[in-house]
């Protein structure tokens, strides 16, 4: 059995290796964009079942953002919602035989965590400017600047490790059990993996929103009292 921690390129484009996670991500992207296009092609005031499900998803994301930030959800909806949907679909892609979830390789969670890290900076600077964002590291006092800067990195790193660890471990366990036991034995573990994947997607999205909100509030001209 090959270790799931090892990634073998599918093919090379010059010096650039194309890993299976990238191809799977492209497939997920195509599927999501195609589904989104089909869903939103004929939006009506009286929704169909699929449109109602799509609107339920959007409303749930909006409500979650509003509950966390207390602000209008429109600026964060696309980023947070896409993170949630992508991670969820990526985690659940393990149900397709022969497909390894992209989130089970380190590069994908690391890329997602890096995007969250950059989005924290982006939204913080957009809210309070560069000065305001940097002043947020000096709260509650300048002594905390090194710790706050370290925290901004470690919390993104923790998101990366958490997502990668949970998904990778699920895939690892299923692979081990599948190699040792009969065909249907891993099914309960796969169901548990589905739950774990949904929870991890939710946690990653909510933590991203919390961190972005924290940066926005610290960078605001009149930061809210804790």
């Amino acid at each position, binding site marked *: 059995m090959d270790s799931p921690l090892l990634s073998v390129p599918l093919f090379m484009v010059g010096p650039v290796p194309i*890993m299976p996670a990238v191809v799977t991500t492209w497939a997920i992207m195509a599927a*999501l964009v195609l589904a989104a296009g089909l869903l939103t092609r004929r939006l009506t005031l009286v929704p169909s079942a699929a449109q109602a499900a799509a609107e339920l998803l959007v409303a749930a994301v909006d409500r979650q953002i509003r509950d966390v930030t207390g602000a209008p959800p429109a600026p964060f909806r696309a980023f947070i919602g896409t993170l949630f949907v992508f991670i969820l679909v990526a985690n659940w892609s393990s149900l397709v035989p022969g497909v390894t979830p992209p989130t089970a390789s*380190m590069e994908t969670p690391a890329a997602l965590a890096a995007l969250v890290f950059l989005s924290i900076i982006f939204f913080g600077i957009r809210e309070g400017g560069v000065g305001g964002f940097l002043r947020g590291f000096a709260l509650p006092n300048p002594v905390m600047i090194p710790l706050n800067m370290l925290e901004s990195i470690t919390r993104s790193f923790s998101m990366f490790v958490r997502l990668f660890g949970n998904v990778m471990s699920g895939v690892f366990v299923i692979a081990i059990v599948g190699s040792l036991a009969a065909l249907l034995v891993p099914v309960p573990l796969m169901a548990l993996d589905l739950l774990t994947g949904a929870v991890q997607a939710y946690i990653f999205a909510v933590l991203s929103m919390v961190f972005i909100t924290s940066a926005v509030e610290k960078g605001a001209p009149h930061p809210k009292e804790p």
Partner: protein
Amino acid sequence: MSFDPWTLGFQAVNVLVLVWLLHRFFWTPVAAMIAERQARSATLLAAAEATRAEADTALADLEAARAAIAVERDAMLAAAHKDAEAARAAILDAARDEATALHDTARAARVRAAAALKRAARQEAQGLAVTIARRLAARLDGAAIDAAFLGWLVQGIADLSAAERAALSVARLEVVSATPPDAGAQARIAAALSAALGAPVTPGFRTDPALIAGHELHSPHFSLRNSWAADLERIAAALRADPDGNAGVTSDAA
């Protein structure tokens, strides 16, 4: 364990592209549709509220109109009741007046009928009296009656004033008798008149059976009625003047 920086870059770019694509094709259209539905619902709710407000206003107007109609109906009923009362009072008054008029008319008719009956009875009594007197005169001695009436004629002349007697003595006199007097009777009458007037007179004689009995003296300007018919007429006149019949018939006859 391996970590490929190219894959890290690919995945970051992939996710960013996916964010943009879903933002373009999913999140924005669906959110816009939700917002449009909410706006449409708010519009419909506002329109429904406005319609309900209009309905409430119309209902209030209707209630006011109904109340006004009720008030008007009460007023009309009161006016109709008042008119009916007035009409009833007018009808009662008219009926009362008509009844009074009918009663008065009936009473007047009854009075007239009683008066007519009384007149008829009086006339009948008068006729009966004349008949009785005529039959009595027929059974009585004609000479004695003539003598009595002649005596009453002389007494009547004596009751006249002297000027009247003097005027009668020079006038052309006529004696009207119930029965034709014979020559002797005419002589006695002429003698008695001459004695009563104090001057010789020669009267003319005429017969009128309507007198029943007696002698009357007439001149162009004077009449001395002295007959049973005249007495009966006087009695009848007295009865007409005194419906109770208490007039002195006997004295007038004498």
